């Protein structure tokens, strides 16, 4: 118990970190995002994440750790934007009266983004193989032929994808 409590930052530690490094995190994020309000919002999220972290290195090298968390949030943010843009582009091809309403769009995006986060970290080829199997329902020989691979490579990619998804859903 004592060991664990040493590894968990206390609210007091976070307060100190906030005072010392908040300005630095905001300027880091502002360079990446090009927008002050967004940078402030995301800096807030970065510090909120710290309350749940168990990293002992946090107190040793706060800026390295804060920078990593802030970076990860930025990447998630850009991916979400990329997804939204691709989705809006695809909707633009539909007749206006058949377009899904705002609420439905949001649900679709939320669900896709959640799926994307589970898959994040997989290489694009492994991801494609996994999705062809799980969403399109293709057999491994079909996937292998489509991508010009052997069935054995497809099978290995599937195992890799399952291990990855399991770890991101249930923890390593």
């Amino acid at each position, binding site marked *: 118990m004592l060991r664990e409590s040493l590894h968990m930052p206390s609210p007091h530690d976070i307060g100190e970190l906030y005072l010392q490094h908040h300005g630095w995190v905001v300027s880091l994020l502002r360079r990446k995002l090009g927008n002050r309000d967004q940078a402030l919002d*995301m800096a807030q999220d970065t510090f909120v994440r710290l309350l749940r972290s168990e990293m002992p290195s946090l107190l040793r090298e706060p800026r390295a750790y804060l920078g990593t968390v802030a970076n990860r949030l930025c990447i998630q943010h850009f991916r979400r934007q990329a*997804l939204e843009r691709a989705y809006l582009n*695809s909707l633009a091809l539909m007749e206006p009266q058949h377009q899904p309403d705002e609420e439905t769009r949001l649900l679709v995006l*939320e669900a*896709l983004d959640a*799926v994307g986060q589970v898959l994040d970290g997989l290489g694009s080829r492994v991801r494609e193989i996994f999705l062809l199997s799980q969403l399109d329902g*293709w057999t491994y020989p079909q996937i292998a032929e489509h991508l010009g691979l052997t069935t054995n490579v497809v*099978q290995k990619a599937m195992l890799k994808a399952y291990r990855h998804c399991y770890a991101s859903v249930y923890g390593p």
Partner: protein
Amino acid sequence: MRMQPFSNTQALDPEVLEQAMLWMVRLQSGLSSQDERIACQRWRQENTEHERAWQRLNGIGQGLRESTHALAAPDARQLLNARTQLSRRGVLRGMAGVAVLLAAGQGIRQRNLLPGVFSDYATATGERRSLTLDEGLDLKLDTRTTLDSEALADGRLLTLNSGRILMELRSSVSVRVATPEVLIEPAVGSRLMISHGLPGAFGTRVQLLRGDALIEQAQGQRFELSGGWQQAFSIDQAGPVTSLGAAASAWVQGQLLAERMPLGELLAELDRYRPGFLRCDPAIAPLPVSGAFSIDQPEASLDLLTKVLPVRVHKVLGYWANVLPA
């Protein structure tokens, strides 16, 4: 009797998990033999831990399909690729003027985003499934249902997160069903349906086909319900007790029986069994409909509607369907 918090994150033996993945990959390859399928079935039945690992892996695929059910598979793949491929500068330019929703700060472990992945048992859109959890405890899961099951010292606790189940309690196993609104304790010999979050019903609906059940709300109010009656519950309110028609359990046979049911309600019900989105033009939503509709073949049911009512169906990519005045 208290509501028990449920945790479904117990770690699995890594070796069992690895074995389950090998089975899963073999059976999904399209190359497995009948013997292998039987051997896998046997492996799953050997040990509850094996089955648990299998169900979790199965849930990952189902979660993916559930989460993307509104889209055709190639479209979903394309969007997921786009999510990681566009350059950030391009993205920023392209997003000018579009309201951005910041997803940061929300973990992916939220049950509501990917309910299928986090549940012990889950059915996909249009799927119905039978389960026997204990000797004498039979369950049927309706479309888009997620259910957790936990063996506690004083009996089995089922947690219905979404959808609908029919349960039959044939011998004296102690079982309780929790929903976000109530805790239900059926008597031995009962046959009942429990649903949560269905269209047209607020909160939890309990329908007793046979037997008796005790129902307790989160704040401690208790109710009794007997065979032939139904009642709906929110966190702090209970609806009127009404009699239960024969049509209520028709879904078990793959049917939706309507007797002067407003079209809007019928379509909301059909929507749950159909991949994609089904919309009803408000102008025709009150039209009364009577008849037997197949929930296993929702497209055929839509066709049937266009024959008996002055309506037409406009489909986009097969997934988005709008029911409009003819």
